[in-house]
C-alpha cells in the first residue's frame, strides 16, 4: 500500500461523487467557470500591484502589498477556523487494514494541503512575485518573499488543525484584531506596518527561510503527534457530543399544522451546520445595498437600485428557497408517506421565507440613512420578494435534486455542484423580472409608478397565493419520483 494508491482512491472518490452525474455540457460549463475564476484571481494580484504603483508612486509598492497580506492572513484565520474541514473524516475504513499508522497519518496531513485555502498563495502571491521580477526586483528576493508567504499559509493550515475549534484561539484572534485596530488608531505603533516591515526584512535575509521552513516542519510534526495520540474511535475519530438547543418556538404550537412545520423548519435552520452557513450568507446579503447606495456611479441608476433592493431583503429566500425540497432530503420518504399535501408543504416554506423577508426589512431600516427615496426601493423590493420572488425560488427548487447532508459543511464548490442549465435559466427571471416590472412603469410614468408597480405585483402575488402554490405543487408532485430517487442516493 503506497501513498500512490491512496491518491488513486482520492481521485476516484472525487470523480465518482454523485454531483458528477450531470450532463456533459454542465461539466464543461463548471470547468470553464472554475478556470475563469482561477484566471480572475491570478490577474487580481498583478492588477492591484500596478494600481498601487500608480496611486502611490512615492511609496514602496511591495510594502503596501505586504500590509494587505496581513489582512488576508487575518481573514484566512477566521475563514479556516469556521469552515476548514478536519481531515479525519473518512479514515475509519482504513484503520484495520494492514497499513502503518504512520502512512495513514502522513497521507491525511498531506491530503489536507488540497484544501482550497492553500491555493491562495499560488493564485494570489505567485503572480505578484513574477510581476516584481519583471519590474526589476532580483528574482531571489522575490522568490524568498513568495516562499515565506507560502510557508505561513501552510503553517496556518496545520495550526488550525491543532487548535481544533478551540474558542480560546478564536478569542485570541479577536483580541489581536481589536488590539491592532486600537494601536493603529491611538498610537504610532501599527501592527500592519510592523508586519509589512517584518516580511521585508525576511526577504532581505534569505537565510531566514531556514527558520520559517523549520517552523512549518515543526507544525507538521505537532499536527502528526496530535492526530497520532487521538487515533482511536472514542477520541479523535469520535463525533463530538452535541447539546440539544431549545429554541423557544413553543408559541408556534398554537398554529396547528402550519405551526408544526414552521417550528420544524426553524429547528432545521438552527441545529444543522449546512443551513447555518446559508443563514450567514443571507445575512451578508443585507449589506448588499451599502455597496451600491453609497456610490454616485450607481445610486442614480434606478435599475441598479431595484436590483440591489431585491437582493437586500431576498437573501434568505434566494439561498434557502431554491433548495427547498433538498433541505428535507434526508427524510423525504417520511414526508411523502405522511398525511400532508405538497400544497401545505409549500405553504409553510413560503411563510418561512416571508418571515425572513420581514425580518430583513426591519433590519434594513438603517438604509433610511441614505434617504427616504432609497428606502422606498427597499420596501417595494421586499413586497416584490414576498409576493413573487419567493414563488420563483420555490419553482426553481422543484428542479433542484441534489441531496443535502444537513450536518456536514458545504465544500468550497458545493454550490457549483448543483449547476444545471435549468438553474441557470431560472436566474434570468429571478434577477430580471423585478427590474423589468420597475423599468416598464418607470419608463412611462416615472419613479413613483415604478415603486407602485413593484409593490402592486408583490401584493397581487400574495393575494393569489392559493392559485400559484397549487400550480407549483403540481410540478412538485409531477417530479415526485425523480426527486425521491435522487435523494435516496446520498
Amino acid at each position, binding site marked *: 500500500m503506497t501513498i500512490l494508491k491512496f491518491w488513486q482512491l482520492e481521485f476516484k472518490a472525487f470523480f465518482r461523487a454523485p454531483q458528477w452525474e450531470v450532463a456533459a455540457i454542465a461539466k464543461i460549463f463548471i470547468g470553464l467557470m472554475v478556470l475563469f475564476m482561477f484566471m480572475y484571481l491570478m490577474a487580481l494580484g498583478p492588477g492591484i500591484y500596478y494600481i498601487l504603483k500608480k496611486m502611490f508612486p512615492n511609496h514602496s509598492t511591495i510594502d503596501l502589498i505586504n500590509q494587505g497580506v496581513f489582512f488576508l492572513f487575518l481573514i484566512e484565520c477566521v475563514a479556516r477556523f469556521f469552515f476548514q474541514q478536519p481531515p479525519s473524516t473518512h479514515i475509519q475504513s482504513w484503520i484495520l487494514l494492514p497499513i502503518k499508522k504512520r502512512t495513514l497519518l502522513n497521507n491525511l496531513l498531506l491530503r489536507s494541503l488540497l484544501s482550497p485555502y492553500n491555493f491562495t498563495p499560488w493564485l494570489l502571491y505567485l503572480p505578484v512575485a513574477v510581476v516584481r521580477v519583471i519590474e526589476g526586483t532580483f528574482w531571489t528576493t522575490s522568490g524568498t518573499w513568495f516562499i515565506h508567504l507560502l510557508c505561513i499559509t501552510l503553517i496556518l493550515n496545520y495550526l488550525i488543525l491543532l487548535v481544533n475549534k478551540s474558542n480560546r484561539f478564536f478569542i485570541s484572534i479577536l483580541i489581536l484584531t481589536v488590539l491592532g485596530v486600537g494601536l493603529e488608531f491611538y498610537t504610532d505603533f501599527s501592527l500592519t506596518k510592523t508586519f509589512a516591515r517584518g516580511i521585508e526584512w525576511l526577504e532581505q535575509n534569505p537565510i531566514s527561510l531556514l527558520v520559517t521552513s523549520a517552523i512549518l516542519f515543526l507544525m507538521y510534526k505537532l499536527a502528526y503527534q496530535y492526530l497520532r495520540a487521538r487515533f482511536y474511535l472514542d477520541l479523535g475519530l469520535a463525533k463530538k457530543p*452535541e447539546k440539544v438547543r431549545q429554541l423557544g418556538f413553543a408559541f408556534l404550537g398554537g398554529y396547528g399544522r402550519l405551526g408544526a412545520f414552521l417550528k420544524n423548519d426553524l*429547528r432545521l435552520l438552527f*441545529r444543522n451546520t449546512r443551513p447555518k452557513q446559508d443563514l450567514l450568507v443571507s445575512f451578508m446579503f443585507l449589506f448588499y445595498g451599502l455597496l451600491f447606495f453609497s456610490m454616485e456611479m450607481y445610486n442614480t441608476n434606478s435599475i441598479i437600485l431595484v436590483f440591489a433592493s431585491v437582493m437586500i431583503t431576498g437573501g434568505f429566500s434566494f439561498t434557502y428557497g431554491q433548495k427547498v425540497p433538498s433541505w428535507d432530503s434526508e427524510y423525504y*420518504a417520511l414526508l411523502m*408517506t405522511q*398525511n400532508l399535501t405538497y400544497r401545505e408543504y409549500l405553504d409553510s416554506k413560503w411563510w418561512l421565507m416571508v418571515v425572513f423577508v420581514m425580518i430583513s426589512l426591519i433590519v434594513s431600516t438603517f438604509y433610511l440613512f441614505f434617504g427616504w427615496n432609497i428606502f422606498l426601493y427597499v420596501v417595494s423590493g421586499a413586497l416584490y420578494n414576498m409576493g413573487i420572488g419567493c414563488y420563483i425560488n420555490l419553482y426553481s427548487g422543484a428542479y433542484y435534486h441534489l441531496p443535502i447532508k444537513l450536518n456536514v459543511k458545504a465544500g468550497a464548490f458545493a454550490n457549483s455542484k448543483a449547476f444545471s442549465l435549468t438553474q441557470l435559466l431560472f436566474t434570468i427571471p429571478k434577477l430580471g423580472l423585478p427590474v423589468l416590472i420597475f423599468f416598464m412603469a418607470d419608463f412611462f410614468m416615472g419613479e413613483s409608478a415604478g415603486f407602485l408597480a413593484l409593490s402592486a405585483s408583490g401584493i397581487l402575488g400574495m393575494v393569489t397565493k392559493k392559485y400559484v402554490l397549487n400550480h407549483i405543487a403540481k410540478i412538485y408532485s409531477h417530479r415526485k419520483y425523480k426527486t425521491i430517487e435522487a435523494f435516496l442516493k446520498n
Partner: protein
Amino acid sequence: MIQIEKLSKKYEDKEVLNIDQLTIQKGESFGLVGNNGAGKTTLFNLILDLIKPNEGQVINNSITVNKSEDWKKHTSAFIDENFLIGYLTPEEYFYFVGELRGVKKSQVDSWLLQFEGFFKGEVLGQKKYIRNLSKGNQKKIGLIAAFLGHPECVILDEPFANLDPSSQIRFKEIVKKHIENTTTTFLISSHDLNHITEVCNRIVLLEKGVVLKDLTTDSDTFAKLESYFKT
C-alpha cells in the same frame, strides 16, 4: 385493504417485481419473506407510492395510491432511517408526526407511556438529537412512531433487524397485542423466520420478484419456509 393488480417494476430491462394479483384483507397480519433482492422493499415502496410502477397499480382502501394521496390518512410506515428526522429529539419527532396525524401533544405524551418498557429509558428525556442515538434506539423511535394516531394499516420493513434480543421480544409482544385488540392491518417483512411466523397469520415468500408461496400460518409453516431456504 390492499389490492395489488398486475404490478410490475423494472430497472432498465431487468424486472425486479412482478405480482399479478395479491389481496391483503383488513385486519390481516401479512408477513413477507425472501432473500436479498427478492423485491420485499420494492413492493413496500410501491405500496407507499415512493417509486413508480412500470405497470399495474396498488389500491389501498379503494384508493389508487398514485392517483390520490388520501391513503396517507390511514396508512403509516417505517422502512429505514430515512424516515427519521435527525435534528429533532425523540419527543419532538413524536409530536411532529402526531401533529400530522391529528394527535395532540398531551395525547402523545400519555400514549407514549405504554412503551416505556420497550424504550428502556434510553429514548425519552435524553436531551439528545435522534442523529446522536444508537442505531437500535433510532429504530425503536421509527417503529413506535408508525403506531401513532391509530393507523388502519402499518407497514414495517425489517422491524427486528438492529434490535437487541429483549427489544425484539418486546416489540413482538407490542405487535401481537395490536393484532389481538384492533383491526389494524400489518405488512411486515423480515429475515427472521421465527419471529415472522409467530407474529403473522399469512406469509408470502418472494423470489426474484415473484410470489413463490402464499401460506396461512400454522404449525408447519416454519418448517416449510426453512426447507425452502435450505436449498
